């Protein structure tokens, strides 16, 4: 449940005259649900990298409830992200060889941020909620839809204030995509977290409260 305030943001890459992303002002209230659309190369990935602290901006401020990511060091941004952001990615990024539950818990185990028993319970609850009943099943034996549902559970397990999803349904068939989109919106709403989904998928664009359109690195209103 974090609110986002962006001011005078610019991201430039070396060798390019134009900034790949330039946003003079953007405010998202806590708990808002936003779809981010735009053609390929419009700056969607850069936007996500910057608001999650994966990548620093060239200039400007990106503040989540007063915490300016641009003022933090790289390792402090990592720590902030581990505590506040749940990520869902197009390619799932589950780790083969580990079971569903271990995958859900892995980031927290590595970051050692929370006490584990409570987390384990929450992980089981979420896995059951997303329809994965065999918690010990190795992820490499799952279908793509199941994998993305495990990834959704992983993004939510630490109760982050922000969920960011990058094309979460793009590599799934229609049926699995619908299931994942439904789950994501439902669960984030239950948790009351802020949701940003970069996607062209009408199942998101139509259902989320607000749509941000990016083109050439700038927001179209």
């Amino acid at each position, binding site marked *: 449940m974090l609110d986002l305030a962006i001011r005078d943001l610019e991201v430039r890459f070396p060798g390019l005259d134009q900034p790949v992303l330039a946003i003079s002002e953007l405010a998202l209230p806590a708990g808002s649900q936003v779809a981010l659309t735009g053609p390929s190369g419009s700056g969607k*990935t850069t936007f*996500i*990298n910057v608001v*999650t602290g*994966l*990548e620093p901006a060239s200039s400007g401020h990106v503040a989540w409830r007063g915490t300016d990511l641009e003022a933090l060091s*790289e*390792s402090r941004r*990592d*720590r902030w*992200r*581990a*505590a506040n*952001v749940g*990520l869902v*990615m*197009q*390619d799932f*990024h589950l*780790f*083969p*060889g*580990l079971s569903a539950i*271990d995958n859900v818990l*892995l*980031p*927290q*185990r*590595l*970051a050692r*941020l929370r006490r584990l028993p409570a987390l384990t319970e929450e992980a089981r609850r979420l896995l059951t909620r997303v329809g994965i009943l065999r918690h010990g099943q190795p992820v490499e034996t799952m279908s793509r839809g199941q994998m993305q549902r495990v990834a959704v559970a*992983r993004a939510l397990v*630490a109760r982050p204030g922000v969920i960011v999803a*990058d*094309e979460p349904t793009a590599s799934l068939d229609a049926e699995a995509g619908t299931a994942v989109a439904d789950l994501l919106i439902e669960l984030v709403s239950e948790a009351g977290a802020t949701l940003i989904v970069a996607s062209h998928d009408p199942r998101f664009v139509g259902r989320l409260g607000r749509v941000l359109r990016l083109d050439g690195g700038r927001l179209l209103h």
Partner: protein
Amino acid sequence: MFQFIAADLKRHWIGVAVIVLIVALATALGVAVTLQERALRLGSARAAEAFDLVVGAPGSDTQLVLSSVFLQAAPLPLMPGAVFADLSQDPRVAWAAPIGFGDFVDGDPIVGTTEALLKGLGGVTEGRGFASLGEAVVGALDARQIGDSFHPMHGTVGSQGEVHTGITYRVVGRMAPTGTPWDRAVLVPIQAVWMAHHHHHDDDEHENEADASAGADTGAPALNAAAADQPAERGFGEGSAPHAQDDDDHDDAPADLRAPIDEAAVTDPHAPGLPAILVKPQSFADAYKLRQAYRGDRTLAVFPGEVLTRLYGTLGDVRRILSWVAAGAQGLVAAAILLVVMVHVMQRRRQIGALRAFGAPRRAVFGIVWVEAFAIIGLGVVVGFGLGYAGARVASGVFTASSGISLPVTFLASDASSLVVLFVLTGLIAVIPAALAYRQSPASALRGG
């Protein structure tokens, strides 16, 4: 974290196994060279443990030690019989024993000696020592049993040796194990060896009779001269026993062999020549004095220890060369593995980036890659120590089977520090891929990143 590492290693187990094997082989090479050289050194040193000072006729001291301590057959010149008489009366000598070799039975060396050597080598554990001329004591590993009889041969089987038909020994005892070639030797009274050679010459080389009796008459120097005339004759016996005049041409050896051992015959200044004498000095100073006193025109005194030490110098040089070869191999392997690991890390940059994107701190990423690299290489090192040890054991076993010298393949306390140093090096090498992973941007995990 360890769960993740275990899953990761398990998933790439073939590659892991190959790297472990390569590291293990490279390590094993160095370990085996070290252990084998040490085993040769310690094995030969321990085989010579009971031999403080060896006295022989002037010649090669290395050959004297090889023949007397390690029982390697070679023609040795003889010393005058008076040398033993002198030594046995010397106050600086605790005890002295003749070593008379040159005869064989089924390829095992027969050594003519006295009771003193039986005691000096650890004593008789089964049966008893020899009391009469026809009795023999066998080494711990000799196949012959107490009660068995055998005929000695001059020269080894296959060479132009001939059976000494006139003489038969009966086994009456077995020696304690020594871990030396003496475990396969057969020990008989030196007087019996002298007699056998006397008979041998009587029967087959009548022209020698004149020499023999002349030797007996004029004493030891003449015996030595006779030996020098025929250097090709192995070890023994151109001389004749003092009782040469008593037993004539007729072959009534069995009667003689029942006779008790005449102790005085050995210390008689007119006794036949000997190829080697083992001397136990009283004190450290006496050891060096005796060594000095018996280095001259007539005799050569040598500590087996000094000859071996000289050989170790050469052995050490060989080991150093092999060590450099091993180090080169290990360096190449280390470089190759580093390359493989780094390529692997690069290929997995998306996965590593994802770990960080999901909130794993950089130190966790560093730790994962470091522990993985350390575990793989460290396991290789440990397996390599095992392989090297096993290899050295096998090589030592083959050597022991052929030479009788047991080679102790052992790790020393200093090896532990070597292992620690290797682990530290492994840890340092593992830092390189870990640092590479540490620098990986988390953004690369995302689409297009």
